[in-house]
């Protein structure tokens, strides 16, 4: 793409609800704005394929999905440059963004950055989770939204969280057959959740959630399970839950989503441990500004709150950027948006406590893989922690866990929690990887293609 400038007022990274809302607001207020998204179209995970999905029956994905179409249309009309197929692999405190588009790398500068990299699914490290035939529910949902793919064969779903139930409903509406849902949310979670029920009852998710549960439970047996294992020889054959065997061709796993923090962390943004959501999240001010001047983090990357809240957060971060760079430009009143955001966030505590995954499914033992890229077992990580390895960064050196192509995304929380468990301390004390860019792999050829002006060439050859 040849029309990419070398500098912008605002660069938004991620084209989900937060990024789309932020880019539209900023561009309409007159900021030169670019939005990068690595997929072929905008929408993020929640509105994946919103401009191109082959699933035309609106009832299948539901009206909440189609709300994304308005956000996408608004962003397209706003004047922001929407760069899709654009993989951001670096962001640093000088507000320089490294991005690859169509096999060519570029470095661009922005006066403000909004990181809207969303969430990813929490690791679900059970025995057999790397067998062919086992995948995450999110991956199945992406296949449904983007390609209209519906699983055939005997499908079992396992885990907890609102998304599990939503996907079950979407798959059933699309004609899939689900043999069973293994509900792994501990029953005792109710005790912690109950105190937050009144807030949840006031949020828009209450009635929607109940309807969804009813819809799914009418069609699929739901079985409580405290342990789940995938068995098979080179291919999933059966799912074993608390000793009960269930023949299956496909097992979809999901136990909630966590902020995708790799880019913000690599940029030096300070993070903290969230004990309720059991994940790391960036430390942010009320405009979602981070510890690195000029970098804001919006959307679920700022802490899990869902798609509607993500858009509100994107707008608030964009208003802050407009006020800083173009104080005279017209921008919406943040107060109204803050109130709307508060309503969205109100029910979250209830969902977080109710669907909080149990220790046994977060902290595996023995031969179960913790790091699938480098094939490091939970037992190895526990052993190294017991003999003195204090943190994930030392663990990388000894076991190479977290050093494979996923850059630690799939094992980071597992490794931190395992070290904390073995050393009888908290994940907050143990900390997370020191994340090294590129946060997404790039080829040597792409990097070598980085345009270098003659003056710069002299400057770097020191």
């Amino acid at each position, binding site marked *: 793409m040849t029309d990419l400038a070398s500098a912008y007022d605002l660069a938004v990274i991620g084209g989900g609800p937060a990024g789309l809302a932020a880019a539209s607001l900023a561009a309409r207020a007159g900021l030169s704005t670019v939005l990068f998204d690595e997929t072929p179209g905008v929408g993020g995970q929640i509105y994946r394929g919103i401009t191109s999905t082959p699933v035309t029956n609106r009832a299948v994905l539901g009206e909440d999905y189609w709300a994304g179409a308005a956000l996408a249309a608004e962003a397209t009309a706003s004047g922001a440059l929407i760069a899709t197929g654009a993989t951001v692999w670096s962001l640093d405190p000088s507000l320089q963004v490294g991005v690859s588009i169509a096999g060519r790398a570029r470095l661009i500068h922005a006066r403000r950055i909004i990181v809207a990299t969303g969430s990813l699914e929490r690791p679900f490290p059970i025995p057999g989770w790397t067998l062919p035939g086992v995948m995450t529910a999110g991956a199945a949902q992406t296949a449904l939204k983007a390609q209209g793919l519906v699983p055939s064969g005997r499908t079992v779903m396992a885990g907890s969280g609102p998304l599990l139930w939503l996907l079950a409903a979407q798959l059933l509406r699309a004609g899939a057959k689900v043999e069973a849902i293994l509900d792994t949310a501990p029953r005792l979670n109710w005790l912690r959740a109950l105190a937050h029920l009144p807030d949840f009852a006031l949020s828009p998710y209450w009635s929607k959630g109940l309807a969804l549960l009813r819809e799914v439970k009418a069609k699929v047996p739901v079985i409580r399970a405290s342990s789940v294992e995938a068995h098979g020889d080179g291919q999933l054959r059966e799912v074993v839950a608390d000793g009960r065997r269930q023949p299956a061709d496909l097992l979809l796993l999901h136990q909630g989503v966590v902020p995708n923090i790799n880019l913000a962390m690599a940029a030096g943004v300070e993070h903290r441990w969230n004990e309720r959501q059991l994940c790391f999240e960036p430390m942010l001010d009320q405009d979602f500004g981070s510890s690195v001047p000029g970098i804001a983090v919006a959307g679920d990357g700022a802490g899990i709150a869902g798609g509607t809240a993500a858009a509100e957060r994107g707008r608030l971060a964009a208003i802050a950027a407009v006020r800083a760079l173009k104080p005279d430009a017209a921008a919406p009143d943040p107060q109204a948006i803050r109130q709307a955001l508060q309503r969205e966030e109100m029910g979250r505590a209830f969902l977080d406590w109710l669907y909080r995954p149990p220790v046994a499914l977060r902290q595996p033992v023995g031969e179960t893989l913790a790091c699938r890229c480098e094939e490091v077992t939970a037992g190895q990580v526990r052993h190294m922690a017991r003999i003195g390895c204090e943190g994930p960064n*030392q663990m990388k050196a000894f076991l190479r866990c977290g050093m494979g192509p996923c850059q630690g995304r799939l094992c980071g929380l597992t490794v931190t929690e395992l070290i904390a468990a073995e050393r009888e301390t908290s994940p907050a004390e143990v900390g997370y990887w020191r994340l090294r860019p*590129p946060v997404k792999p790039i*080829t040597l050829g792409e*990097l*070598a293609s980085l345009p*270098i002006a003659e003056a*710069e060439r002299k400057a*770097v050859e020191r």
Partner: protein
Amino acid sequence: MARTADVLVIGGGIHGCSTALHLALRGLKPILVEKDYAGRHASGVNAGGVRQLARHLAEIPLSIKSMELWEHIEDLVGDDCGFDSHGTVLVAETAAELADFRTRVDDLGLRGFTHEELVDRTELKRLVPSVSGHCLGGVVSRRDGAADPFITTQAFRRRAVEKGAEVIEGVTVTALSRIGNVWRAETSAGPIEAPKVVNAAGAWADRIAAQLGEPVPLDVIAPMLMVTSALPAFIQPVVILRGRKLSFKQRANGTVVIGGGYRAQPFRDENRTMLDWRALAQSAKTVWEMFPVMREATIVRAWAGIEARMPDDIPVVGPSSTSEGVYHQFGFSAHGFQLGPGTGAMMAELIATGSTNVPIDGLSIRRFQGGHG
């Protein structure tokens, strides 16, 4: 009450850990104080090259002493440290470079050093079949190799503790003062007293030297490295260049480590660096031209370690010029990893016996004092 030791070692890089180990092996009781954890900076994240090739004359004796220890590293530290020995090759891209290399090898020969060997194009192709056809020959040091830097530094630390050293991590030395015949260090975990002190504080060593009244022109640098995902094995020796910045090696697990001296911006008080992607792109271009097989390789990580560089690119090793009982061991200028084992052994000998047979003339801190002091 102050903790006491025979020797206080400041800095838990490979040099501090090696000196602590060798002191303990001589029956002395060292306390090593490290502000972060052993191997947190340059010692743990360098390219891992174990190289005698192309060294400054003043450090060749330490390099040779070190190589003897590297070749039996498991006996010394109880871990193989990932050390393998497939040689280092300095590749000549031009006739002028090859002529320079010939002069250097001849000069070393006259001084009695035989570890560097000139190779022609045929031998270069045999050693490094994947190298680009434009290369004319080079120099090989056949006993050189590479090791895992963090594992090595940790192995030295672990063995030092097993042999009686005390290692205190996460603790910073804030002041040094002389009380009678003893040095007293104020630290964030209370005072420590010892008659001898080793300053192995790397990129922070100038602060210790300044307190002792011998300031040094130390430059804080952060050489950058990149690593690729695993590729089928295609090269054994480490390859380095002279005209362009490159060090290049494939590890046993198939990953390729690319370095060579392009630098990130260091922030030593924040333990942080900021990478220079344009410089890394330059590095990628060099690899693109030298090793066509690498063009589709995937870069999975890039990083930089904070370390000290002296203006003449050789370290400061030996007794303080101002302070009885203090020894310096810093400023290794981006090539100190290989020197760790031997320098620690020499330093322990110097401290325990008052002298050493390893020549370290030319590395004294006095060279920065204009002939005074």
